[in-house]
């Protein structure tokens, strides 16, 4: 099995100068510098994109779907993440953006905020039907799911087993579009437009279903310029789209692009919303140690402020957040999803996971318990010996990790420049 290609993030060796920015920013310590270039340890990477954020050389590429890949489909459908509405200036309304996507080359565009509202309503039904255990953890952020699978295996059963809005939307479209459009199912390409590199993994290697209903994900970064050009060229169409709005937007759903958005839609439930990778890790540690038992739903999003802070977004997250909040307040709290629709889909388990999530085992120091204990002791001795400066010069993010690598046979004590000096 080729696990190397599973991840969307790749180091561009031509641009990488072997500095330590990505090394120290990686929350799972999945990066090492070897021979002057950064390398990602595939089994540890959770696709959060922190390295991308911190790389000053722009040397980390995200392999998302490209425009030319779209040509494989006769009929191209776009499902943009609601974050897209925050990427352009205040005068550009969501309807115009959707219209511009058509000019960019999509045959039809389906708006996601209603499905986000549907997802929130389904989560509420699930929580009310499952009074225990607590807290449940929202499954919307794919990086959180990957993090739990690897670092918090005992919390897997706390993940709400409901598919995220993008998959629910694609599933509905996949079931209906061939009939509605009279197009062969294989000719239809359903593409998500996203600020998040991890979506690509959840599409190519889904963990909660057999096969993703999406055919790919284009980054906001890649589509930004063509959309902007289309917006500029089509002033008349913009007027038309404003006068004949084609889509109903959900204020409740739109808010889910922001941290706390999913929990805001849940009335009468005790919720906690956390954003940012470090705070997510902190709160998951607390849950693992038995805290937050009085919370119904814990929403964790690893990007700062939620999906608006995604590494593949263009606009800074504060501007994007402000615009989305403005749209949310304009749209109000009015629900646009019919309760009977939610009920019927929920009862059919249409939105549920079809595969149960499996933990991904971490590699122990040694398979043999006696030797593992000996190695842990040895590791502590090496940690004491190392300078504790966490400089990254050895290629590992900190002294502790170097000690761990040495014990596992992946590095040498002499990789540490301070130890070298002492030897001389």
């Amino acid at each position, binding site marked *: 099995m080729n696990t190397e290609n599973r991840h969307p993030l790749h180091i561009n060796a031509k641009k990488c100068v072997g500095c330590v920015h990505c090394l120290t920013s990686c929350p799972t310590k999945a990066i090492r510098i070897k021979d002057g270039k950064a390398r990602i340890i595939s089994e540890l990477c959770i696709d959060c994109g922190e390295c991308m954020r911190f790389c000053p050389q722009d040397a980390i590429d995200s392999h998302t779907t490209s425009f030319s890949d779209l040509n494989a489909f006769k009929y191209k459908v776009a499902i943009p993440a609601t974050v897209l509405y925050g990427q352009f200036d205040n005068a550009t309304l969501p309807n115009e953006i959707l219209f511009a996507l058509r000019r960019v080359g999509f045959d039809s565009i389906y708006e996601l905020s209603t499905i986000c509202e549907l997802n929130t309503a389904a989560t509420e039904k699930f929580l009310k039907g499952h009074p225990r255990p607590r807290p449940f953890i929202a499954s919307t952020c794919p990086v959180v799911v990957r993090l739990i699978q690897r670092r918090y295996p005992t919390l897997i059963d706390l993940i709400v087993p409901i598919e995220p809005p993008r998959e629910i939307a694609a599933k509905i479209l996949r079931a209906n579009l061939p009939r509605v459009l009279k197009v062969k199912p294989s000719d239809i390409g359903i593409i998500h437009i996203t600020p998040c590199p991890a979506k690509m993994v959840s599409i190519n290697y889904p963990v909660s279903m057999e096969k993703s209903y999406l055919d790919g994900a284009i980054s906001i970064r890649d589509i930004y310029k063509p959309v902007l050009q289309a917006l500029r060229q089509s002033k008349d169409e913009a007027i038309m789209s404003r006068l004949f709005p084609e889509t109903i937007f959900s204020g409740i759903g739109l808010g889910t692009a922001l941290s706390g958005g999913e929990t805001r839609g849940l009335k009468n439930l005790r919720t906690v919303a956390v954003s940012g990778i470090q705070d997510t890790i902190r709160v998951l540690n607390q849950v*693992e140690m*038995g805290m937050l038992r009085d919370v119904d739903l814990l929403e964790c999003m690893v990007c700062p402020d939620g999906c608006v802070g995604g590494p593949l977004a263009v606009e800074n997250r504060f501007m994007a957040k402000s615009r989305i909040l403005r749209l949310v307040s304009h749209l109000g709290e009015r629900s646009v999803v019919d309760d009977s629709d939610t009920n019927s889909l929920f009862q059919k388990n249409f939105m549920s996971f079809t595969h149960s999530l499996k933990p991904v085992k971490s590699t*122990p*120091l040694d398979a043999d*318990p006696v030797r593992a204990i000996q190695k842990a002791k040895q590791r*502590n001795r090496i940690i004491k010996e190392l300078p504790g400066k966490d400089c990254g010069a050895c290629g590992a993010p900190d002294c502790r990790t170097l000690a761990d690598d040495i014990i596992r046979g992946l590095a040498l004590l002499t990789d540490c420049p301070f130890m070298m000096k002492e030897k001389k």
Partner: protein
Amino acid sequence: MTETASFQQEFKVKGGDFSRGGEASCEIKNLLRDLGLDPHLVRRAAIACYEAEMNIIMYAWQGRLDLLVTPHRIRIIAEDKGPGIPDIKQAMREGYSTATPEMRELGFGAGMGLANIKKNTDTFRIRSKVGHGTRLELTIKTNGRKA
């Protein structure tokens, strides 16, 4: 019987240091995971450690967690210099708590601490002397529970 191999590490815990509460337990948790122990066992140990650590932080002046891991069991000694527990029987009851309103605001003091430690361990011994301190000795068996 002498153990063939053992790992021992001590973690100092400072009374009143809420901002670093849980750090020792977290480190113990990661260590047990590195040793390849079953995740559910690791979690039980982590919960017990955390409760013990927080008890020291909340009530005592200073203390330590002493971890010993052998191929067959995990032993944790939580020892503190502190006010001690006058009535251990009462303190062991679920729901009994002497937590102050400040502690409760932080989410502690539901009166589950000691009972929760006992629930998550295989053996549980407690000794306390009022005005001197408290000593907990906990073990979790790991025989044949390797992941």
